[in-house]
């Protein structure tokens, strides 16, 4: 039932001459359908954790399984394929391809998957409506507000029905009201579409939304609590 299984994951970065131990042995098991927050101050290793789970970055040691795939055995091209079909990403900012409109940004993933054009457009429009962007299909990213851009990013991350969406501080660049709106929307998607969401944050308001809250500090899991509503 676990969609993510990490065992004793370690990762060290070199920043110039300094070695930064971003992950010092993290083990993490996340169930399908979860709405999980990775909490911790900046530099705690939460972004690295997300990158490792998404196959954007590889762990130095330990094993990472995503939806039954052992990431450390996969090639770059296979990882790209995994991201394409199983994982959606939402970043803090600059999520969108600037030369593509909102609709085209959402379509892009399906294009890569080889979804036929009519279905692509139908689904993209439907999901943009779902995230509250009806009528703004043809706006370019520069013509959308920060909150709207993040909604497009979320729409894009879930349009291809991934098993898991990884969101790295999705609300960090938004004011609290817009942030709340985005989280409501994400939660709705989580419940409606049964997509697993894992997001990082250091904002308590955001943590309140999570059904499971994992605290990370200095590359280690320091607290892990499941909240029931």
């Amino acid at each position, binding site marked *: 039932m676990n969609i993510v299984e990490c065992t004793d994951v370690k990762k060290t970065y070199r920043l110039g001459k300094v070695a930064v131990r971003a992950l010092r042995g993290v083990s993490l098991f996340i169930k399908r359908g979860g709405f999980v927050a990775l909490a911790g101050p900046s530099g705690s290793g939460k972004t690295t954790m997300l*990158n490792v789970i*998404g196959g*954007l*970055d590889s762990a130095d040691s330990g094993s990472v399984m995503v939806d039954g795939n052992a990431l450390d055995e996969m090639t*770059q*091209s296979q990882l*790209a*394929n*995994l*991201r*394409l*079909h199983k*994982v959606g*990403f939402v*970043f803090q900012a*600059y*999520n*969108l*391809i*600037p*030369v*593509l409109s909102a609709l*085209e940004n959402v*379509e*892009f*993933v399906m*294009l*890569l998957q080889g979804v036929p054009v009519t279905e692509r457009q139908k689904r993209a429009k439907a999901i943009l409506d779902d995230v509250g962007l009806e009528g703004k299909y043809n706006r370019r990213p520069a013509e959308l507000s920060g909150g709207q851009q993040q909604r497009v990013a979320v729409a*894009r991350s879930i349009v291809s029905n991934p098993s898991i969406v990884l969101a790295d501080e999705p609300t960090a660049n938004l004011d609290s009201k817009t942030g709340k709106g985005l989280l409501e929307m994400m939660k709705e998607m989580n419940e409606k579409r049964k997509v697993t969401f894992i997001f990082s944050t250091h904002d308590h308001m955001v943590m309140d939304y999570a059904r499971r809250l994992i605290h990370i500090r200095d590359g280690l899991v320091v607290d892990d609590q499941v909240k029931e509503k």
Partner: protein
Amino acid sequence: MSIDLKMAWRNIWRNSRRSILTILAIAFASLLLVFMLSWQFGSYDAMINSAVKIHTGHVQVQAKGYKNKRSIRLVVPDPAEVGDILEKTPGVAAYSFRTNAFSLVSSKERTYGAIVIGIDPVREAKVSTLEKLVHQGNYLSAGDTDQALLGKLLAKNLLVGLGDELVVLGQGRDGSIAATMVKVKGIFSSGQDEFDRSTIHIPLKYFQDVYTMYEAVHEVVVLVKSLEYVPEIKRTVAAGIENTNKKGHLVALDWMELMPGLIQAIQMDLVSGFIFYIILIVVVAFSILNTFLMTIFERTREFGVLMALGTTPGRLTKLLLIESTTMTMVGIVIGIIGGSLITWYFQEHGIVISGASELMRQYGLAERMFPQLSVLSVVIGSGAVLVITLLTALYPALRVRRLRPVEAMMSV
């Protein structure tokens, strides 16, 4: 329009100033190449045409060995037989017969050595420009006997004018003395000093009588309808000769064999031209390489996002190549249009290279030159630009494969 193309097109105009400069560089190179190649091809055509029409024709039938020895004894004994073959060969525009003999030509005052050429006035007018080159007096007519056309410089050296008499003294085909008196009927000027200084033309029949040639001639000169027919016609004529009883004695030669200097000069000009063009294109390629490279540095983060979305490195390479190809194609199209317009203008009006007319005349070129726009002159240059530019674009497009998503995302 596919989304890839759409992205490429929009990306090009994200930094319009830079893209325009890049496109202009490519357009400049293709424009120059279209024009220069049209110019070169035009001048080759003019050179070949004028050389063929003044000197050799496209194809000749001669006795074997005549080309180098020019001996009066090496003849085509039965020109009518060769004529029959030519009548039946498709693509032949006209043919004529010529005889040549080196002789002493004397006026009252002077004596010079010259090549006396026997021509059939009617046939000759169809294969060569001689008739048009006569600028004083008249061209020979069918019934003429002791009349002569004189090169302008020879006339000057001999101090003679129209109507003056010349004594011609040479050796006949049988070794006897050939001597006669001719009147200057016309004076011609080809602009090629060597030709104008050393030739005198008399009617073929008269020549054959004086030099005891009987029916024989030295050259059967063939003009074909178009340059590309030459190899085919040469083959047909050579095969035709094989069927006569003179096989092994006669040969068919094309203009390239008759004037090896001309074709080699053209080849040299082409090759040296290409050296210049390739260097030019390489300079342009390095000039625009930075534009292509900049793209990947500036958009690294964007590529990170694309990769996070699951775009494979191969797809990124493709996207970048579409972008650079589009830019190159726009440049080339502008270059071709501009180059064709400029070429077309000069094709109508001609170009005068001041001060070089004397020089060009010696190569059979008129003072006013006409470039010649052709599919070839358009395709070769722009093709070379396209290939080299795309090779240049390959480097950044392949480099992007080395990007790793996380590093890409961290760069700003």
